């Protein structure tokens, strides 16, 4: 009796697999046939799981760019782009499987993604081995692009932000003393803190206090009391919005009235919801500002809201730019050859996207302007766009 049940179960699973297989591929081939000449580009990102907010936004952003390009006649004299969207759930081993599938089975010429730093590290290896370029919209970890010649990104890297903020504090704000409060259990936070300190000191400032906290901390009073004793003009806090809100509130409660500075981890409405008036007058670096009145940004926002009925976060315009970058590179490569496309990507110069105009340095990191935003009357506001 038990054995019979097992056999039935196995048969059922087999039948289900076959059905799903056919349903999946039948759909795919039909789509491809109607388009005639097709260029396949892969997309990898977390569409489910903890980082889904970034993955879904990135996917939506890339889809908008590709629809635009296809509507305008496609690339290379009439090739339409087909985007093969894959969910890696933010998981590294899943990313490995998907990379192999996209390259070996689907024969994509290039891939947009992965979205987060961990999976991008894994994908970089395979991209290098198989010589297929990947363009990450949002992986900011410093080392990503040095892992393989086939990895490019359109976001700036972590220490770049620290550098920009250090320069902003010293030059634009004209401050001489700074304190740093960072999360010493987090690479992102440490990278930003380091770069900020270096730049600020090179430009004649002094870091009077360097305090650390650990992930999950609630109580920042001890560190903030030490900082208050040194009376710095600015406090740089490269952390995520939930911690930032806590730190701002506790700092104001201790009477610290210095200007607080941060990185793109601050860029969330939750910061203002959490900190309220304590967030007023702070500055942080980020990828783009929805308050930017430039035509490119505003057009993108209108299209995004029209198509996806929601407000985008910064992953959407970055993925949009990643798709633009790829289309432009394929056009310049002149043929569907992954190695030539990769060379064309690195030679990109002055491509104008939603998040700015960019070229690449020798490590395939974008050289582009960084947006500096502030909080004013309970809302984010654009301050400046600066180049290093």
């Amino acid at each position, binding site marked *: 009796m038990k054995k019979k049940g097992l056999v039935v179960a196995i048969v059922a699973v087999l039948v289900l697999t076959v059905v799903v297989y056919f349903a999946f591929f039948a759909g795919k081939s039909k789509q491809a046939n109607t388009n005639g000449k097709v260029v396949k580009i892969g997309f990898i990102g977390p569409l489910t799981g903890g980082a889904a907010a970034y993955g879904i936004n990135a996917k939506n952003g890339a889809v908008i760019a590709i629809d635009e390009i296809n509507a305008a006649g496609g690339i290379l004299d009439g090739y339409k782009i087909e985007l093969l969207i894959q969910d890696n759930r933010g998981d590294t081993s899943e990313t490995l499987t998907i990379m192999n599938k996209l390259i070996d089975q689907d024969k994509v010429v290039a891939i947009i993604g992965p979205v987060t730093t961990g999976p991008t590290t894994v994908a970089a290896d395979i991209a290098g081995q198989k010589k297929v370029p990947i363009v990450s919209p949002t992986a900011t970890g410093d080392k990503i692009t040095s892992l393989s010649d086939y990895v490019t990104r359109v976001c700036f890297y972590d220490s770049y932000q620290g550098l920009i903020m250090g320069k902003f504090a010293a030059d634009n704000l004209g401050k001489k003393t700074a304190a740093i409060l960072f999360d*010493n*259990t987090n690479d992102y936070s440490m990278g930003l803190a380091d770069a900020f300190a270096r730049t600020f000191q090179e430009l004649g400032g002094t870091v009077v206090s360097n305090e*650390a*906290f*650990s992930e*999950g*901390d*609630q*109580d920042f*009073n*001890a*560190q903030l*009391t*030490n900082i*208050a*004793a040194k009376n710095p003009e600015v406090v740089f806090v490269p952390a995520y919005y*939930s911690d930032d*809100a*806590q730190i701002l*509130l*506790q700092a*104001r*409660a*201790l*009477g610290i009235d210095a200007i607080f500075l941060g990185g793109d981890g601050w860029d969330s409405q*939750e910061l203002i*919801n*959490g*900190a*309220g008036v*304590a967030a007023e007058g702070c500055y942080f670096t980020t990828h783009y500002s929805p308050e930017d009145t430039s035509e490119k940004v505003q057009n993108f926002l209108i299209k995004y809201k029209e198509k996806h009925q929601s407000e985008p976060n910064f992953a959407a315009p970055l993925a949009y730019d990643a798709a633009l970058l790829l289309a432009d590179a394929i056009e310049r490569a002149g043929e569907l050859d992954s190695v030539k496309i990769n060379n064309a990507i690195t030679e990109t110069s002055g491509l104008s996207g939603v998040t700015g105009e960019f070229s690449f340095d020798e490590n395939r990191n974008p050289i582009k302007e960084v947006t500096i935003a502030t909080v004013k009357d309970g809302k984010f506001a654009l301050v400046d766009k600066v180049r290093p």
Partner: protein
Amino acid sequence: MGLFVQQIVNGLALGSIYALIALGYTMVYGIIRLINFAHGDIYMIGAFVGYFALTTFNLPFGVSLVLAMLIPAILGMLIERVAYRPLRKSPSIAVLITAIGVSLLIENLAILWFSPDPRPFPQIFPNMPLDFFGIKISIPQIIVFLTSVALMIALNFLVQKTKIGKAMRAVSQDKEAASLMGIDTDRIISLTFAIGSALAGAAGVMVGVIYPRIQPLMGVMPGLKAFVSAVLGGIGSIPGAMLGGLIMGLTESLVTALISSTWRDAIAFGLLIVILLVKPSGILGKSTREKV
């Protein structure tokens, strides 16, 4: 010097919260020899009751605080009635594992109902410092410390001066003898859970006032720290729990301020090991001989 005093103030504010939670651990342990691992989660429930009272129902702070003590108290009694009382005659390991189960149940229900995202706790008190001869103490810190001290004084009065307190002390000394003297031990145990849980609920609101961010798993770490505080001070001893909590808070603040935040937990828990090696019954605990 001013800096050092200020760090002590930070430590006292943090420690008074640990002390409030530690009291629940120690009272329950004193009376039925159970480490109630669900206690940290009751503290979380207190924070959420306070949050909803203040935001959704827009109640004044005092009323919210009372509600945030009352509802956890009822919950504490309910947990005791449903999960622990049927196991009163079982081996203590069975009750201990049940306590861990209850803790996981409450945490996951909270994630389900309240969502795992952290919420900002509403700010009721002015977010600024008062200056005492050059030492700046934030108003939330003052409120938290004073409320905690008031609650501890009230508890001390209850345990030492009232008939209920007398009964509680009797049950903790010898359950059988107390019951022979006509004390309804089940009712006293239930009441002990209620009082301990009410204090934890108050601690939840205090944490919202001073570190305004709450989420369903906020009780795990403070629960553990408060448990360590209770053992540090001598588990089963009420003044011991208060002292242990304050020592814990002070150690954390001073280690973070003078050494590094990465050493904080290592030193705090290391302190426990030292105390257990030197004086296993805790600072104020009485060493009792094994009853045969």
